[in-house]
């Protein structure tokens, strides 16, 4: 009887193990499938950018002749370098300015208590419900009078990206909310001013969120199409990579520029992915920490 029980138990544990093994195997298959699907476009872009035999879309993926022709053409025949520099400048400037705006806003709303704080937050919540693009009609009109559109669009865009960025305070406010209040109070008791608390106590603790905000600011101009295309207005000198490369894939340009688009895509992706992967840790912290607490 006893022996039988033991046997049954062993069989059961074996079957549990087996079923776990099967479920793990299924998961591995799914994960490999996901990996293939998710990496396919990137590998595709990379491979197509080396196809020297054609400028068009083809029915096959692997190049018949490897070469850097499209990369060379990119810098010789088009304004791509100009667009790239424009976007890089915008990225750096936006990351610095946005960080200042967002951090001061979120710090105030998270850690300081003053009259009208709740009201201000509600007001910004309501304001955020308007589509941001709506503001561009007036901004375009004013900027074109002042001369901040067309080839000066990068400067105008930096202003547009940064000026209202205070409204995106949610993630970093969520971060500041998690720092214990007792730290501030202890410092205040010791005679620190609010500025000193901010500068000497909280800021040193806030490295992850500062880096997260910088990262987001740097990536914004690379990904934005809507605002940029509106201010740039098809002026090649003022284009960002997104707006410039969008034109390459229009029906009329597709067959001349397709492979060049892929080459440019690779070049654009390299700095952004490099920065991103290097700072990935902070990004993950920002998304998982701040986003849900909003």
């Amino acid at each position, binding site marked *: 009887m006893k022996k039988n029980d033991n046997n049954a138990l062993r069989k059961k544990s074996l079957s549990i193990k087996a079923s776990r093994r099967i479920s793990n195997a299924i998961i591995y298959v799914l*994960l490999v499938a996901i990996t293939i699907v*998710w990496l396919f476009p990137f590998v595709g872009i990379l491979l197509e950018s080396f196809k020297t035999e054609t400028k068009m*879309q083809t029915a096959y993926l692997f190049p018949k002749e490897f070469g850097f022709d499209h990369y060379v053409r990119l810098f010789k025949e088009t304004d791509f370098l100009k667009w790239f520099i424009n976007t890089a400048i915008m990225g750096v400037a936006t990351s610095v300015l946005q960080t200042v705006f967002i951090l001061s*806003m979120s710090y105030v709303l998270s850690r300081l208590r003053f009259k009208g704080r709740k009201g201000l937050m509600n007001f910004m919540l309501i304001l955020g*419900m308007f589509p941001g693009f709506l503001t*561009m*009609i007036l901004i375009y009109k004013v900027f074109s009078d002042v001369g901040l559109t067309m080839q000066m669009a990068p400067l105008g865009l930096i202003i547009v990206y940064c000026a209202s960025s205070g409204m995106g305070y949610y993630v970093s406010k969520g971060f500041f909310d998690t720092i214990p209040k007792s730290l501030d109070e202890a410092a205040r008791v010791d005679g620190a001013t609010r500025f000193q608390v901010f500068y000497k106590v909280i800021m040193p603790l806030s490295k992850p969120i500062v880096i997260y905000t910088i990262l987001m600011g740097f990536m914004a101009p690379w990904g934005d199409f809507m605002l940029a295309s*509106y201010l740039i207005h098809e002026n090649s000198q003022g284009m960002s990579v997104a707006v410039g490369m969008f034109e390459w894939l229009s029906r009329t340009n597709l067959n001349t520029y397709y492979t060049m688009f892929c080459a440019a895509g690779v070049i654009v992706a390299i700095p952004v992915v490099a920065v991103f992967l290097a700072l990935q840790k902070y990004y993950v912290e920002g998304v998982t*920490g701040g986003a849900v607490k909003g």
Partner: protein
Amino acid sequence: MKRLNDLEYLKLNKFQAFWYNLLMFICAIPVWFKNVGLGIWRFIKSCGITVKNEVLDIGTTFAKGNWAVKLSFFLLGFGNLYYGQVMRGIMFLAFELIFFAYMFVPSGGLYWLGKCNWFVKGATVGTVQGGFEYDPIYDTDVWVAGDDSVKVLLYALLTVIFIVAFVVTWRMQVKQCRICMDIRAKGKKIKSGKDDLKSLLDDQFHKTLLALPLTGIIAFTILPIIFMVLIAFTSYDAAHDGYSNLFSWVGFEHFNEIFDFGGGGLGLTFGEILAWTLMWAFFATFTNYFLGMFVAIMINKKGIKIKKFWRTVLVMTIAIPQFVSLLYVSKLFDSSGLIGRVLGQIPFISNYLTTNHFISLWDSPIVAKILLIVINIWVGIPYIMLMATGILMNIPQDLYESAKIDGASSTQQFTKITLPYMLFVTGPYLLTSFVGNLNNFNVIYLLSGGNPIKGTAGGASVGHTDLLITWLFKMTLGSTESKYYLASIVGILIFLVVAVLSLIVYNVIPSTKNEEDYK
């Protein structure tokens, strides 16, 4: 309907419980409306009380105040100067001087206010229409510029804001006089300019930090939005661009146009676009949410190796600028693209395409919509995966252990522990993500561009996959048909949709209520 207590509720079977919950929900709707109504009434009442108190306070200040305080009702800052706050006094005085100078100089504030013809139906914004006049020197017609309606409206709006700022400053100054009076009466020391500066880094530190971001928001969000709301009541379009032709006030005429479901109106088009926008936001949000959570659970399962690798693969999609990957993917599914060609060879699909005379998958409204939702899963899963990973790690492990001991299966563990916890924590996120998808310009515009086209409305081509936001964008692209007033109306309607949704969700979801809970 009678509310059951916990014991009675637990006695109900599943069907009864569902029925009970449904009834309770329906019963709660009138109460909800009542509460909203009461809230508005209370708000109006409190506004009335505030105004009354303010007026009373101003009155007593004037009655009690000495000559300096009385004088500073007309010459701002005089009270501050009298009480020794030189810096504040000078600033107030300077502000007043600038204000009156701006208002009364030629082509200053009053000039613009007068030109604007506020809301007078049929009247133009601006009074002088530009036109061609014969110029004897050049012996030809030359353009003589008149008013620019946009400029007139903008300056008039700025003037109104300036007036409001002046009134607020005036009130602030009167209040300060009152405070100074009280402090002097108690025999205490009044703050000097040096104290003011110091407090900007201490008690008033929020003012220092807020100055820059708030200025930005006022100038680049609030002002343009008020301006665009005003535009909804005008006839601002490509033909009446304000410069070559003045535009005029039309009242609610254009709102009627968009809600007109007859032949000439835009009601039908608008309804269709709105329906697809809501449908898109719904599917885009929830497919991503559940599939992303599923992937996160898979990666985090015990016994799965190289977790970091799987995660990094997904995170790559976030890192690469969207326009690169989305434009590339969009072309992949085109008729000449790799996947498009492969799919085109499947008989079922190729038959469907040829019988409908579609060239590529993007030409079919239904297929395009499905493709968008599927590709959006590719875009969105990594974000949810990252977030869900963080949350999953936060779920206390002892919950699972005790569940296991009680004999709960892994499905039960998921539906009874993981899912409720996730939903509770990510409630607000779901809302923001839904709203984000309502306005998800990038995915739609870069993938399908709103195509296939079904017609024109509002001076722009409208496609089957256009969202309200992409329609708005197309309306303003500066073609000869652009209708800016319609863009502004669509913008206002987007706002209304989002506001109503948020109001409902905020009232339903528990986790949005207490901000301090997380501390």
